[in-house]
């Protein structure tokens, strides 16, 4: 069995306690559900001396003036089943319900999904395997085997909930050594697989705030994967909009699992205010195709994944416009 070694575990009951524990040991890491961190520890990707457990902090969903507030500690299965989410933010619940397997959704939290480390077929492997490879740019090496170069790591942001949260314009409440702050989720990610989160050391995500969608909100999340369970996305497509009949008043499309940074599709404003006919749908699909550049960090032919972004877009819009 792959074993872990060399760290101690401390259980935190609040964000403040977690932060205090983190400060107590340099290089400490937080663990919530542990469904991504533990495999990474077993693979020898990190060697923290202290793990700060934040999985015991209460989760939950509540309404506030500026939107729907979701505790980062909310379990993905609770999120998917939450009545408020189902009523107001259906695509988010849909995405949460498509993460990995039932057991992992029971354990994993929304915060963990947002903060998920980037993934790559050359990175998420055992220490032995990576030694045999000669390591990679993201861990202990100097070469990215995906792009074949020493400069850019293209490990993929592979969360299912993230494209939806970007499309919904969610805001993140963070607490860290420097205090509290709020950050738009679109500002969180950058195109660097080795360091894809714009965070300061020790910062914790405490809450995700999603603006309450207005009347006429329709949205969906489509996931491409080999198996209908367990697998990470080969591509995730979120489409969210405000609609009047078949006319979009607002429209956002985000493509996930293609690169270190989820891709917010630009140029959709041109399609607002008029009924979305087949020509427009095809044009949007074409736009998505042009702007989606899947990296080979994720399994499956990259060109095919790119084509699927267009197919998924066409199908999602086709269903959504009624």
């Amino acid at each position, binding site marked *: *069995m*792959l*074993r*872990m*070694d*060399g*760290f*101690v*575990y401390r*259980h935190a009951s609040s964000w403040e306690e977690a932060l205090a524990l983190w400060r107590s040991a340099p290089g400490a890491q937080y*663990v919530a*559900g*542990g*469904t991504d961190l*533990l*495999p990474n520890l*077993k*693979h020898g990707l990190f060697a923290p001396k202290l*793990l700060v*457990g934040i*999985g*015991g902090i209460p989760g939950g969903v509540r309404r506030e003036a500026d939107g729907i507030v979701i505790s980062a500690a909310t379990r993905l*299965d609770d999120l998917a089943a939450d009545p408020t989410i189902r009523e107001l933010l259906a695509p988010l619940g849909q995405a949460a319900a498509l993460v*990995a*397997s*039932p*057991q*992992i959704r*029971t*354990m994993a939290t929304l915060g963990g999904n947002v903060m998920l480390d980037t993934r790559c*077929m050359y990175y*998420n*492997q*055992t220490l*032995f*395997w990576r*030694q*045999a*490879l000669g390591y990679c740019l993201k861990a202990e090496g100097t070469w990215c085997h995906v792009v074949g170069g020493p400069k850019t790591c293209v490990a993929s942001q592979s969360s299912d909930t993230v494209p939806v949260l970007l499309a919904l314009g969610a805001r993140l409440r963070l607490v860290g050594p420097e205090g509290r702050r709020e950050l738009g989720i679109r500002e969180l990610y950058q195109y660097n697989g080795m360091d894809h989160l714009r965070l300061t050391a020790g910062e914790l995500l405490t809450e995700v705030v999603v603006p309450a969608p207005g009347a006429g909100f329709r949205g969906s999340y489509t996931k491409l994967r*080999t*198996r*209908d*369970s*367990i*697998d*990470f996305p080969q591509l995730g497509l979120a489409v969210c909009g405000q609609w009047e009949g078949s006319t979009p008043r607002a429209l956002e499309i985000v493509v996930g699992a293609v690169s270190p940074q989820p891709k917010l599709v630009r140029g959709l404003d041109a399609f607002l205010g008029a009924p979305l006919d087949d020509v427009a749908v095809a044009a949007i699909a074409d736009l998505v195709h042009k702007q989606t550049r899947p990296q080979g960090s994720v*399994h*499956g*032919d990259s*060109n*095919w994944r790119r*084509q*699927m972004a267009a*197919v998924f877009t066409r199908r999602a819009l086709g269903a959504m416009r009624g």
Partner: protein
Amino acid sequence: MKSLLTLRVNGESLSLAVPESWTLLEALRYGAGLTGSKQGCDKGDCGACTVLLGGKPVLSCLTLAHSVRGEVTTIEGLATPAGPDPVQRAFDVCGALQCGFCQPGMILSARALLNRVGKPTDGEIREALSGNLCRCTGYTKIFEAVRMAADGCERHVPVRYGTPSTGFDVIGARGRKADSIHKATGEAVYTDDIQLPRMAHGKILRSPHAHARILSIDTTGAEALPGVFAVMTGVDLPTAYCIIPWTPDETALAVGKVRYVGEGVAAVAAVDEETANRAIQAIKVEYEPLPIVKDAEAAIAPGAPLVHELDWKGRPWADNVCKEVDLRFGDVEAGFANADAVVENRWFYEGSTHAAIEPHCAIGQWSADHKLTVWSATQVSHYLHRELAKVLGVGAQDVRVIQPVVGGAFGGKSEPFDLEFCVAVLSKKAGRPVKILYTREEVFYAHRGRHPMDMAFRVGGTKDGRITAVESDILIDGGAYHSFGLVTTYYAGQLLTGPVGFENYHFRSRRVYTNKPCCGPKRGHGSVQPRFAFECAVDELAERLELDPIELRRKNMVTAGERTVNGLLVTSSGIAECLDAVERASAWKSRRGKLPYGRGLGVAASMYISGTAYPIYPNEMPQSGVMLRADRSGKITVFCGANDIGQGSDGMLAYIVAEETGVSPEDITVVSGDTELTPVDLGSYSSRVTFMAGIAAQEAGRTMGTALRNAVAGLWQVHVDRVAKGLGVYSDREDPARSISARDALILAEAAAGTPLVSAGGYRTRKVGGEYRGGTIGASPAYSATAHVCEVSVDAETGIVRVEKVWAAHDCGRALNPQLVEGQIEGSVYMGYAEALMEAHTFDERGLHSGPNLLDYRIPTSMESPDFIAQIVESIDPGGPYGAKEAGEGPLHPVIPAIANAIADAVGVRLRRIPFTPDRVLAAIRAGRS
């Protein structure tokens, strides 16, 4: 750092001192001794470790033990003193357990679902179990069990509950497996569940190079580590071995050279696994990397580096071709000349692996009088016994091999592996028992899975539907060693000649060495790949000849009593009934070729051996032996060396002995797979066990039954013919009111004998096969027959193929227990489906595996696995026990070509390379349109 952990488990408080880096799974298994929770993948990809936390299913392998705050329920906590949980009972009754290794987790997921939703829909069941991978069942009987549990399942159900075949008391009845309730409750003991006093843990250091010379190994760093008991390298065991005794080209650990990434180089034993891991890191190996042979094509390229310089007799290899077979039957050129159409093409089969959920595990222990015991998750305890004695240089009489319950094998545990030799040496050096448990990654390197094959085929036929000639040229990528390769190379041609026969045949097959983990036998050894090519070619031929594909197959059937073109004697065949059954069930005539674009039906047929005619090493002794010991307590114990790897051979032995003796199955215990206690059976490979151990059990049972009836006749002072055998009872044919229980009859018989009541039976080699060099390879005392129709839908925009349904008709001779036969059919079809659509055991230019774990090597979940409709055809073989033949491997063969042929029906493209991934399908559709 160890610290005190307090857990609430199954209603009790547990206090354990365990390291803070331990997972809940480690704490339960190795701390609390609750070994019902299993470990399959190391890291959350398989679900075998599922427990309930606060009533919800979680992965205990990804839960830090010290983070747990709620109530934990493990499989041991489900049963009450009143009996097992209804879910456990339903799994037992429905035959939902084969190897049982995934089932504790599966049952807990099902329990959580039923607690949440009383009467779940089929979709909810699939979804709830979708994080629990099962490799044996194809999920069909698991779904059935969950539905049964939801409907209310008694805690107590009789051992047998079906109706036997006419004229039998037990044979033919649907029944539970002998051990399934133990598996369902977590009682069954698998190798890693065994903890011996003072036991040390071993680890094997593996080569990061695919091909390199070993210049030096410095083990001093490991030896100096506190807690390290023993270190070994290849020079400790230089004797070469191979499961096939003619080709010993492998050593326990590499000597002089490494030939694939992951090959063992050194091994250590230490106080715990963590220390052993540190110790292997402290061993310094100096390598001189060599150019690698990455695949079969590279292996035969002029000037290719040699994977092996010398063979086992010290003769230099001229090239990397380690075995070549070239056989001709009839006049192929004349056959093609007579053909009205010839299909000629190349097919490619990508390698695949077994992926049994239980990783290999072995424990070695030496006694004070220098006798070795090895417990191992093996499916060939007898061959392991022989090879251990040979390689260790000790007498076979000083070696004992015990096979605990095995968590799936499928051919992946059918020869000796490095860990079995290493635990023997390390435990001797350390002076204490040593266990080695593979990581999932190591299982991928051990491999011995299905060979990649590049297959050129020509198939010719006439307008009236005769297949006149078949010619093939097959290049087989063997990996670094021989394994069963000699046999594989023959099987690639020899097993193709029925049930769809042909008049003239030429095949050439070449197996080459490459710098990759060694390939070997996976369910349907050697013949699944050419079957894919051939059955696709036959489908294309039917199209060219404008014949219905089922009709073309019918016109060429090899029927009972006939010999195939290469001389295999077909003693029985239900192929006609199989084709009829799937044609009818799929509404083939009204639907095939007539479904809307994107939906299609495809057919394929196959046959498979019921055991190899001859043992792997030539000898005149029985290939299987069964001993019975009756006891005045009213029971019979069956001793047989056969390896139950989940297929249910222990139950099969019990049913046969029950049938022959009249003793109820519940009064029969089976002791198997222990070389000290049981007579030799050669092991669970080549679909031989039901046929051969079945014959042996029949013979032993018959002798015992006669003794019992004679004793009863003596008591009643009547002729023995008047004593009629029932189930658990003997009665007087002429005075039905007079009867005696079988339990009492056992006492009578022991008294009459004046000795303990014992009997024995054996399966003796029957001379079959063709009269030519190689004519005995592929020869079998009986052949099963199979036909499948698959229905697929193909999304022409995405290329995604969904297999909607598989109708699988299989002729297994007599079904001794139809429930187990169905399980074998369903499991086989599942495995073929997986190979067709998603599995690919691939390597990069460095010879590095593309993802040796169960997240990257995807095996199907309960969500996408199709509906399998298993249909049993009983041809009643004249030589099998009660007419039985094999069922465990044959039904896999037609799946891949039937899916390919269905895709052709759906979207008009022929796929000749597996797996049929969506990008390939989409590219083929687009190429077909342009």
